[in-house]
Structure formats: structure tokens, C-alpha cells
């Protein structure tokens, strides 16, 4: 619907093509870019950085969120600190990181992970807190050990929360990364967009094409992973 509105506005000549490139031009630009190794490398780099960042965040945060969800004393001690850190602006953190680590992919992954921390932490923590006490009674009565209690009860129980957390993390991470790629001096779609601005007569077209790429990637990942997970969950929820 938005697309048809866009196209009709452009075709009618209401908006000049220097202000808003026509949809068909953007799509053509996108197809052209998709064949360019240069562009694909940037896309790949962004994607790699985000995925690494999110995975890192997951590995670090998961055990913490689990513990905090199960012990309210820990929760009361740790969660306020996390909330405080989460309130800090990402850009400021990145500047700090770049000063300490230097520019490059490490900083990019770090900032990616940083923005991914909070959704994962809070969704998993919430998931654990919501586990009905009786589920623990069941695992106890049937003599499940710690590992079995985790694999057979806790993990499946919080799986929906995990999916939500990952989805959000992915989104947050993408947005932050694209915004800061230039500052971190790394390759990526953000860098591509800012470097292409003013470099040619149709730079805006290419910029929009790049943004559309991000949208397409997000949709693709959603379809490939998250929607599959959601369908599985819907069977029993």
C-alpha cells in the first residue's frame, strides 16, 4: 500500500525525483547493487557484526537472567544496575568503546552486543519469573536433577520469551549498528549509505535502496527463523 502511494506520488510529478526518487528507480538501483561485490561486502559485514553481537549478548546474558529470575535477592541487587546501564545512550557508549578499543569491527560487535543485552536480559528474566511454582514441584517429585530440570522444564518454558528477546535484540542491534558504523570506521550498510551521499547524482536512490535492503533482510530472517519458532509455540500456548 505504501509502495503504491509512493509510486503514484512520484509518477504524478508531485514530488521531484531529487527529493524523493521514484520507487521503480529505487528497485532498479537495488537490483543493480545486488550484483555489486562492493555493496554485498558491506551488507555482509553489517549482518556479520549484528549476528555476532547478538550471539555474544545471548551467551553472556542468558545465565545471568536465569539466576536473577530464580533468586529474588539477586534480582533486587542486579536489575537496578542493569537498568541504569541500559539508560545510557548507545552513542556515548560507542564513543567510549572506540576510545578504549579503537575503531574497527571489535568496537562494532561490542556496541551491537551492548544494545542486544537489554531485551535478552529482561525477556528471559521475565520468562523465568513466570514459571509456575508447581512446575518445579513436578521436576522435584519426579526426581529430575539440575540439568534435566533445566533442559526439560526451564528451557522449554522460557522459549517464547527467548524468541521475543532475540527478535527485539536483533532489531535494536541493527538500528544502533547502522547508525554508528561510520563512527567505528567499519564497513557496513550505514557506512555505505553515508559514503554514497553526495557522491553521485543518484546517491539518494542508492541510499534508499540500501535501506530497503535492511528491510528485506529483516523480513527474510523473520520468515526463516522467528515465524517458524512462533508457529511451534502457537501449537501449545
Amino acid at each position, binding site marked *: 500500500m505504501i509502495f503504491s502511494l509512493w509510486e503514484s506520488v512520484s509518477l504524478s510529478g508531485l514530488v521531484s525525483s531529487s527529493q524523493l526518487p521514484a520507487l521503480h528507480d529505487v528497485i532498479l538501483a537495488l537490483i543493480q547493487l545486488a550484483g555489486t561485490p562492493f555493496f554485498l561486502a558491506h551488507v555482509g559485514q553489517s549482518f556479520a557484526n549484528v549476528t555476532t553481537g547478538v550471539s555474544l549478548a545471548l551467551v553472556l546474558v542468558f545465565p545471568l537472567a536465569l539466576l536473577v529470575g530464580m533468586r529474588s535477592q539477586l534480582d533486587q541487587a542486579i536489575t537496578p544496575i542493569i537498568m541504569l546501564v541500559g539508560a545510557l545512550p548507545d552513542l556515548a557508549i560507542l564513543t567510549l568503546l572506540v576510545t578504549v578499543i579503537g575503531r574497527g569491527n571489535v568496537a562494532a560487535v561490542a556496541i551491537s552486543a551492548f544494545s542486544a543485552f537489554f531485551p535478552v536480559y529482561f525477556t528471559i528474566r521475565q520468562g523465568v519469573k513466570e514459571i*509456575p511454582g*508447581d*512446575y518445579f*514441584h*513436578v*521436576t*522435584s*517429585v*519426579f*526426581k*529430575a536433577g539440575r540439568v*534435566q530440570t533445566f533442559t*526439560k*522444564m526451564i528451557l*522449554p*518454558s522460557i*522459549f517464547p520469551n527467548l524468541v521475543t528477546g532475540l527478535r527485539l535484540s536483533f532489531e535494536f542491534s541493527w538500528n544502533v549498528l547502522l547508525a554508528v558504523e561510520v563512527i567505528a570506521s567499519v564497513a557496513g550498510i550505514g557506512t555505505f549509505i553515508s559514503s554514497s551521499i553526495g557522491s553521485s547524482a543518484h546517491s539518494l536512490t542508492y541510499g534508499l535502496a540500501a535501506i530497503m535492503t535492511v528491510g528485506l533482510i529483516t523480513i527474510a530472517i523473520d520468515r526463516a527463523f522467528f515465524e517458524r519458532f512462533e508457529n511451534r509455540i502457537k*501449537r*501449545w*500456548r
Partner: protein
Amino acid sequence: MHVELSNVTKVYEDPPQIVTALKDISFHVNEGEFLCIVGPSGCGKSTLLRMIAGLDHPSSGQIRFRGDLLTAPHSKISMVFQTFALLPWRTVIQNVEFGLEVQGRPKKERAEVAMDLLEMVGLKGSENLFPKQLSGGMKQRVGIARALAIDPEVVLMDEAFSAIDEFTAESLRAEVAEIHNETRKTFLLVTHNLPEAIELADRILVLSARPAKVKSIVGIEMERPRIQTDSEFVSIHRDIFALLQAELENSIMRHRLSGLKEFKRLRDMEDR
């Protein structure tokens, strides 16, 4: 003696208060019997059951199973929950198999045992449904099948029929009585429903109000099936109900007195 409780006391500390839930409880459960525990609400009967299940520990006193001290859940003691507590991401048969899975039994054996039990509780054909597709009565049938799957010697039932509508509960009770008759396992049911207890029990343990003590142990000699409108049933009900009512009044009196004491104490503090 299958299960024996000796001088079991349970105290909760919530400073500055100390609440004694159970005081000096001693009784035994005979092998193969159906024992019901009744008492006023909040008297600690569920706590008692949870201690036998190994989910909680007495503050003092001992619980023995087959003569051995019980300090943790026992593989031969199983439980059916008031909330059903089925794992929602598992199908009916996967829920029933849970205990067997934990024990590491092979897949084929698990499936056989589970299917047999599902047939026994009348759920044959529903094995691949998810709990969300089941009614309360069906869920509890799964709970019962799950409890029986590990072939326990003792089946603990914590208000197992209390969250089900009365009609379904009635038929479920009859089925449980039948299962007890066939398997001759020891059943321990905690309930606030006196007619239910009289219908099912060989003996009824009546607990007093908090701090709960053993008020009375009543043997029920009636032949089964027991009809609630029978004169003998009614007379037994009247007697035990009177016991419970006395306890209820007792606890209300005690609350009033303790409230009065607290009021006086606060007023004395103000005066000073």
C-alpha cells in the same frame, strides 16, 4: 507401616513473627490404604503432604517411608497436583512419560506404559493432544496417569479434585477409587471436601486449626461404592463435620483473641 510421621513440627519464621503451622504431628499410614486428611482451610494439611513428597522439610520430627528416613523426594512416592501442573509444551503422552524419561527408560517401554495408563484413565485416542485442548477433568486424568507411570507405592493427592467442576469430579473420584481397588497402592488425599473424604477413605485424619495437631483419626468401615445419601454416610458426615466446626470456631476465637492482644499492645505502647 508404609509412611510414618513422628512428632513432626513445622515452623515458619517471618521476623518478628513465628508461625507454627504444624505441631507434634504423629500418625502412620498403612500399606495399601486410602487415607484422607481433612481440616480447616489453611491448617497446614497441604504442607504436611508436601513434606511427605520431599518438597518441604519438617522443622523437627521425622518422616519415615518403609522405615527409612525421608529427606528428599522418593522414587516410589508420587504426586497429583491441584493445579494439574501439566507441562503445556508436551503432548498428553509426553506428559505421562515425564517421570519415565527422567529415569532414562527406553522409548518403547515408556510409550507402552504410558498408553496402558492412558487407556486406564479413559484417555485413549487423546495421546497427541496438548493440555490447552483438554478440559479440567481430562487434565487431571493425565496428571493421575503421569503419577502412576513411575509405578509408585504411594500416591499423594493434594486437593486433586478441588479445581474441577463437581460433576466431573464425581466421576473422577469413582475412577480413582477403582484404580485404588485394582492397584492396591497407598493413596493419601488432602481435601477440604468432607463428603469426598468419606466417600474415598479407609481412614480419615482430622487436623485441628493452626497450629495443627492430630485432632482425630476416624476409621470408615462402610462398603464401597459409598452413596452420599445413605444414612450411615450422613451420620458419619455429621460427626466429623461437628469436629471440624468446633475447630473452625476455635480458630476464629483464637484470631479474635490474638487481634485483641495486638490492639492492647499497641495501645499500651502509645500510652507510654
